[in-house]
């Protein structure tokens, strides 16, 4: 059953990712990416990362993709600036480059997996639930967490400055 769910959602995510790349209309790209992120959230859940799966749906598929959708609608998807067909002009080398890139990544997989796995400490319970993440996040990684809040603040200010700049 677990394998069935994995292969089902892996196929869905790959097809949706291909649609993001090959579909010409930006609106359909956004929708395909939402599908891809949703199916990847299922895979995250299967990996035991329950908190990350919830964050994936709420922040990625929810907030970030809605932001993308806002921008696509703001720039008017029906206007001719989205209609430029540049896909025909792509150099033919780009697809072999991507295939070679994929082969290099796949070549690294057996090397990475061959590292010895640590025996799971089952006394801690499931590793991905909220309490386990919160315990590590607010003790060992407290400083990075606070720095992240500063980063978000800077990003908000930067976005406001960029958006308010007049021509």
């Amino acid at each position: 059953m677990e394998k069935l769910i994995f292969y089902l959602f892996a196929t869905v995510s790959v097809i949706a990712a291909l649609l993001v790349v090959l579909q010409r209309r930006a609106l359909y790209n956004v929708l395909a990416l939402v599908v891809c992120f949703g199916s990847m959230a299922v895979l995250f859940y299967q990996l035991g990362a329950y908190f990350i799966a919830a964050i994936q749906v709420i922040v990625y598929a929810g907030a970030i993709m809605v932001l993308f959708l806002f921008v696509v609608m703001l720039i008017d998807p029906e206007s001719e600036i989205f209609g430029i067909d540049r896909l025909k002009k792509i150099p033919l080398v780009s697809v072999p480059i991507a295939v070679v890139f994929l082969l290099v990544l796949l070549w690294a997989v057996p090397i990475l997996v061959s590292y010895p796995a640590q025996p799971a400490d089952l006394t801690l319970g499931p590793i991905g639930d909220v309490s386990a993440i919160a315990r590590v996040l607010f003790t060992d990684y407290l400083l990075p967490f606070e720095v992240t809040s500063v980063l978000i603040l800077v990003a908000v200010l930067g976005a406001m400055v960029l958006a308010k700049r007049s021509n």
Partner: protein
Amino acid sequence: MVPTTHYLILGAILFAIGALGVIIRRNVITMFMCIELMLNAVNLTLLAFARMQAQVDAQIFVFFVMTVAAAEAAVGLALIVQLSKKTESVDVDLADTMKW
């Protein structure tokens, strides 16, 4: 249990699709979405290793990657809106100057 290798191969495939999109597409919004796709493929790889090593630290890394991606999306989309106002287009090839 699905072996870790399969998750890593899926992550590699999704990352390569994202890289392909960045190469062949000229629409700046779609290129940005492909970058988000690549970030997610890396997150999948990190989580597969987190399960293999039974460590929660990699999940914290994924949390930070998502936070940085959210900040990056906010700033990047503001830049894209400004770019589309200036050049009346979403074609990255038209944005080849450092300063207007």
